[in-house]
């Protein structure tokens, strides 16, 4: 009986056993979804027929809360929009308010912000590298990534006292000046870290298992990526130049030298490649910032109560660790925003997941989802 069945299956003939599609729930609590994202996956055997992300499990209505807080109060909530890259979101909001109210920020504060945002990018990419490799079954990079991330977090803690939600970049400047020992410690970290990048590459980049799992998997073509609103390293992996730091320079990104990391194939491996290259670029940016840091004020002169002009609105974008982060603000003449909208990269980067995983195996969903560097608080806000 078994022999007959096997021979029928091998010959591709119909057997007397029917096959049904079945539906699997991944999440909301599942290690591979990095938080509380739920994926409803329709499967034929192990082949994915359809992936439907279900959002909202972490919806905290930050946009509604911001409408009922003054502008400086909102900064605290921006930490929670993306807690793995809190400095970027702090800065994105502060930049939008400064544009809306025409606040001139002192030079030293801008350089400090740049140092912090780039350190945050390294920390965020390290955490991503660890969890991405972990999803694919390699647990060592997570420990290595955490080891170096710890030193960055120590630098942040030394500066503002917090380790996850910093609330450091404020409207008009930064919370507090860095300590004198920050600069040597930061330089020491960069020197140490540069060699570590080779170590990660040795672990992962040309590891045969890693290549098997990521090469050619989840290919985003440039047309699909742009149309679906994919941004950041996920789109740069497809070779589209979309770095806001280059396209619409903010802070002093037009005064430092760095290259936009670009991939070619648009698969998971290319996205990995882009992020690893960005580590090197960030190190170089931070070094240039430290060189050009000069004493000076760290906060702009501002009225005691910040009020946005009635009817004024602004949409300002930055390149956060995950991609394009936009903040849309509408003022109504009071101290509170009439409307605050966070355009988060993860939200749009998760959207094409269904398209990217159809026809692939169940395990490839983790590779694709991991390579997009999605973070749930940013998706749900």
């Amino acid at each position, binding site marked *: 009986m078994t022999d007959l069945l096997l021979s029928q299956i091998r010959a591709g003939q119909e057997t007397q056993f029917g096959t049904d599609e079945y539906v699997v729930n991944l999440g909301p609590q599942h290690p591979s979804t990095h938080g509380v994202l739920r994926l409803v996956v329709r499967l034929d055997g192990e082949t994915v027929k359809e992936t439907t992300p279900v959002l909202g499990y972490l919806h905290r209505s930050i946009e509604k809360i911001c*409408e009922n807080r003054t502008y400086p109060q909102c900064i605290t909530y921006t930490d929670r929009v993306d807690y793995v890259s809190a400095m970027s979101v702090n800065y994105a909001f502060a930049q939008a308010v400064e544009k809306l109210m025409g606040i001139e920020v002192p030079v030293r504060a801008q350089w400090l912000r740049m140092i912090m945002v780039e350190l945050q990018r390294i920390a965020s990419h390290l955490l991503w590298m660890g969890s991405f490799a972990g999803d694919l079954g390699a647990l060592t990079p997570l420990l290595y990534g955490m080891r170096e991330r710890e030193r960055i977090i120590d630098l942040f803690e030394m500066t503002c006292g917090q380790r996850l939600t910093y609330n450091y970049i404020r409207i008009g400047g930064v919370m507090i000046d860095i300590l004198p020992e920050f600069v040597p410690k930061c330089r020491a970290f960069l020197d140490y870290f540069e060699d570590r990048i080779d170590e990660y590459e040795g672990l992962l980049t040309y590891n045969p298992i890693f290549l098997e799992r990521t090469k050619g998997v989840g290919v985003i073509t440039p047309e699909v990526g742009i149309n679906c*609103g994919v941004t950041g390293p996920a789109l740069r992996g497809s070779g589209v130049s979309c770095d806001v730091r280059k396209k619409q320079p903010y802070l002093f990104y037009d005064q430092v030298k760095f290259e936009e990391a670009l991939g070619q194939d648009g698969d998971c491996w290319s996205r990995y490649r882009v992020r690893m290259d960005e580590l090197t670029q960030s190190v170089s940016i931070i070094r240039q910032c430290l060189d050009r840091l000069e004493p000076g004020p760290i906060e702009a002169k501002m009225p005691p109560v910040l009020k946005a002009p009635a009817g004024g609105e*602004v949409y300002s974008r930055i390149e956060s660790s995950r991609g394009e982060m936009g903040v849309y603000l509408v003022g109504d003449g009071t101290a*509170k925003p009439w409307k605050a909208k966070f355009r988060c990269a993860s939200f749009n980067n998760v*959207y094409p997941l269904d398209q990217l995983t159809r026809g692939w195996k169940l395990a490839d969903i983790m590779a694709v989802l991991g390579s997009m560097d999605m973070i749930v608080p940013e998706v749900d806000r």
Partner: protein
Amino acid sequence: MTLDELKAKIEERFKDSILTAVLSAQKELIVTVKPEAYHEMAVSLRDEEGLAFQHLSCLTAVDYPKENKITLVDHLWSYRHGHQMTLKLDLPRDNARVRSVEDVWKSANWLEREVFDLYGVTFEGHPDLRRIMMPEDYKKHPLRKDFSDDGFIVKPN
């Protein structure tokens, strides 16, 4: 292309569809469009060579209960030319309906679902218009200004 040139170009090309085109104090081009011309204009903005707004960066809405309108706001970006513009359209608050642009920019799919969920704007022709953030059986639209729910008290701004 400078913003002034872009403004002149859009005013010339879409003179029947737009209501106003202004350059804001923050150096952003804000174009208000008639709701019935919205979809057609979106296709032209994406496809025409000199405009090429391939990237719908953000789509959201703003509620103005005093004027009895909900304003839909699209932020567009062109990778080719590196210019940005804001597209706006006013919808009546009690019957907010507009043609979906999901077939123009796929990224609008979830963004429109979010606006539908939180503001109660209906997008005609959207393939999958369901709530995205709130539970499926939820009845209200939280980002509307008159929203109130047990335990959430909105203070007047």
